[in-house]
């Protein structure tokens, strides 16, 4: 039975990704700071702050201790903040880097080592269409995800010789807690810009992400954006 580790499974996209993989017969391990009581067969949750490298290491060791190998890591845990650049509190900028970039870095590094030992594995990092669109009002969030994209490309080159495939998937607006604070009008404008005026359901986002994650021909270092739009 293939085994996936997904970060950010306490709600939103991470939860939906876990549900889909479980339905396809995967074993799924999930990290989030505050896991709820959700415990379907095949799912194991751990309370982990992905920004804490020591916590990440011991949680990954708990998965691999019995000799299990991780086939797929989805670095999905993330936070967002919409602020005019000049009004963004430094703490917010630091927190977005900590969760989005460093969280991805720590999980990639720790699980990457386990995958190097297995000489194979696949890692998908979750990013956003806001990066290629250079979306105004999201500078700190966009910069943290741009760092995730750069990490993806370098990691893919560095770890390809050991059999790892690493790529990123960039989503557009999806109705989760992350977008609750954003007004309907800016979301509608963004959906127009990416050629998806009707928006994207969670199920469609999961289809798109897993379509790439499980594609046997997934190109190492590739970044796939939902929608159809010219870059900014």
């Amino acid at each position: 039975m293939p085994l996936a580790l997904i970060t950010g499974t306490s709600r939103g996209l991470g939860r939906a990704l876990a549900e889909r993989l479980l339905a396809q017969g995967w074993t799924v391990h999930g990290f989030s700071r505050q896991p709820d009581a959700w415990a379907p067969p095949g799912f194991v949750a751990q309370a982990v702050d992905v920004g804490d490298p020591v916590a990440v290491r011991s949680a990954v060791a708990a998965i691999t201790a019995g000799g299990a190998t991780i086939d797929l890591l989805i670095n999905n845990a993330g936070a967002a903040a919409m602020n005019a650049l000049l009004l963004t509190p430094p703490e917010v900028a630091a927190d977005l880097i900590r969760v989005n970039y460093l969280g991805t870095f720590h999980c990639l590094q720790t699980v990457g080592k386990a995958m190097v030992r297995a000489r194979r594995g696949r890692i998908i990092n979750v990013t956003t269409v806001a990066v290629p669109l250079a979306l105004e009002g999201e500078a700190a969030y966009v910069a943290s995800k741009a760092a995730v994209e750069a990490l993806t490309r370098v990691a893919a080159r560095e770890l390809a010789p050991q059999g790892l495939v690493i790529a990123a998937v960039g989503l557009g607006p999806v109705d989760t807690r992350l977008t609750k604070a954003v007004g309907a009008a800016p979301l509608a404008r963004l959906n127009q810009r990416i050629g998806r005026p009707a928006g994207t359901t969670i199920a469609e986002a999961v289809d798109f992400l897993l379509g790439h994650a499980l594609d046997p021909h997934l190109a190492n270092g590739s970044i796939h954006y939902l929608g159809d739009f010219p870059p900014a």
Partner: protein
Amino acid sequence: MLTRPEALQLVLHRLAALGRELGKPELERADEQTRLFGETAQLDSIGLVTLIADLEEDIRRATGRDVVLADEKAMSRLTSPFRRAGLLADHIVATLGAMPPA
């Protein structure tokens, strides 16, 4: 805890396994002095990363301890602990010795 001879044994055992995997018979005859990286080394940077990842797991199996061999101290030392097999064995013993009791 690991003794120095046990740590060296782990390193040499791993080097031999890597030698078989990479088709480098010299690694199967590795000893204390075998150079791990640098101009005349037996491993390229990919091989070194693989060796460290494999060794961290070997150490966890042998001791139950979760070690990171490439920590900030190790990476900033003037004489890299990854230069020779014997230095790496010293580094493993020192890293385990510096850990708080489990």
